[in-house]
């Protein structure tokens, strides 16, 4: 888990800071962090609320951004199947981009019993959760004293850009990204931020079609 931690700090601070730069209070900013514990979805939620997007667009976007957790969940589930309900619920809440790859690889290479698997998952997740909440709070408090002309809200697209570029593993992913961005650009002036949803849907469709065509 330790190699992941330095990368969490700036992202957590940005996730706490940007809602405050939009005019939300530090409690508003922290609430998203507590309820979602999912950085990209938090940032998108506050950005879309700030743009007066409709609730459906906000919830669809949160769903789309968080769909990857379904894959993580499916992969981790067999290892936690025998845990009690509360443990499974907390494991679901704490699932993250960082704990998933660690457990995914270490569960398969170690002969651990349920208690050891749960302890391993809990230790890593708790460390990450505490650091994430602390960074969000620091960001939220910092946001109240940094003037607007620093344009720190621009860190949101830059953060998304970094996350997006990290996902471009194959040509099909690049086709997805470019087509999604182009459709979103063409639909910039559509009402209710519809361009965003159309861009996301068409990006996925083009990616799947490209992968099938080149297989």
């Amino acid at each position: 888990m330790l190699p992941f931690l330095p990368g969490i700090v700036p992202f957590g601070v940005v996730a706490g800071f940007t809602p405050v730069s939009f005019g939300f209070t530090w409690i508003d900013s922290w609430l998203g962090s507590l309820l979602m514990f999912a950085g990209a979805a938090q940032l998108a939620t506050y950005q879309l609320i700030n743009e007066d997007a409709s609730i459906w667009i906000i919830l669809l976007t949160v769903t789309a951004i968080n769909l990857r957790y379904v894959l993580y969940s499916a992969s981790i589930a067999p290892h936690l199947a025998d845990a009690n309900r509360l443990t499974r619920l907390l494991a679901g809440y704490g699932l993250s981009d960082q704990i998933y790859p660690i457990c995914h690889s270490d569960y398969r290479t170690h002969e651990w019993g349920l208690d050891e698997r749960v302890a391993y998952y809990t230790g890593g997740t708790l460390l990450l959760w505490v650091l994430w909440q602390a960074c969000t709070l620091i960001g939220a408090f910092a946001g109240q004293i940094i003037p607007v002309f620093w344009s720190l809200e621009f860190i949101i697209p830059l953060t998304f850009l970094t996350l997006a570029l990290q996902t471009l593993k194959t040509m099909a992913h690049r086709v997805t990204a470019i087509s999604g961005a182009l459709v979103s650009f063409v639909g910039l002036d559509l009402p209710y931020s519809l361009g965003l949803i159309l861009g996301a849907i068409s990006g996925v469709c083009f990616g799947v079609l490209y992968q099938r065509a080149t297989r």
Partner: protein
Amino acid sequence: MTLDFLFVVGLAGIITLGLKSSFIEGQTYFTLPSWLVTALEFVPPAVLCSLIVPNIFKGDPGLVQEFGQVAVDPKPIAAILAAVAFFATKRTIPTIVTGMMSLYLVYWLQI
């Protein structure tokens, strides 16, 4: 904090928990079809790129709101330079710092 805000963020939290817990809680009840697993792989780049576009091509950054408009919007240029920094370093902080510095520089060069 308004009730509307609480409602939206609360629902976003419930959706997030639902997706994260989907299989950890419900694996005995359902499995994902393989075509959906394939499609899910393409969701992150599609959504993230669609989210970036309005941020780069719409609205004025705080800098412009405070000190006035300039002829060339600094945001798209800053985003391109940030992408270059990412491909050069593959790291988050240099990408964000390059993007922010470029934003300031491209604005400052025009005033």
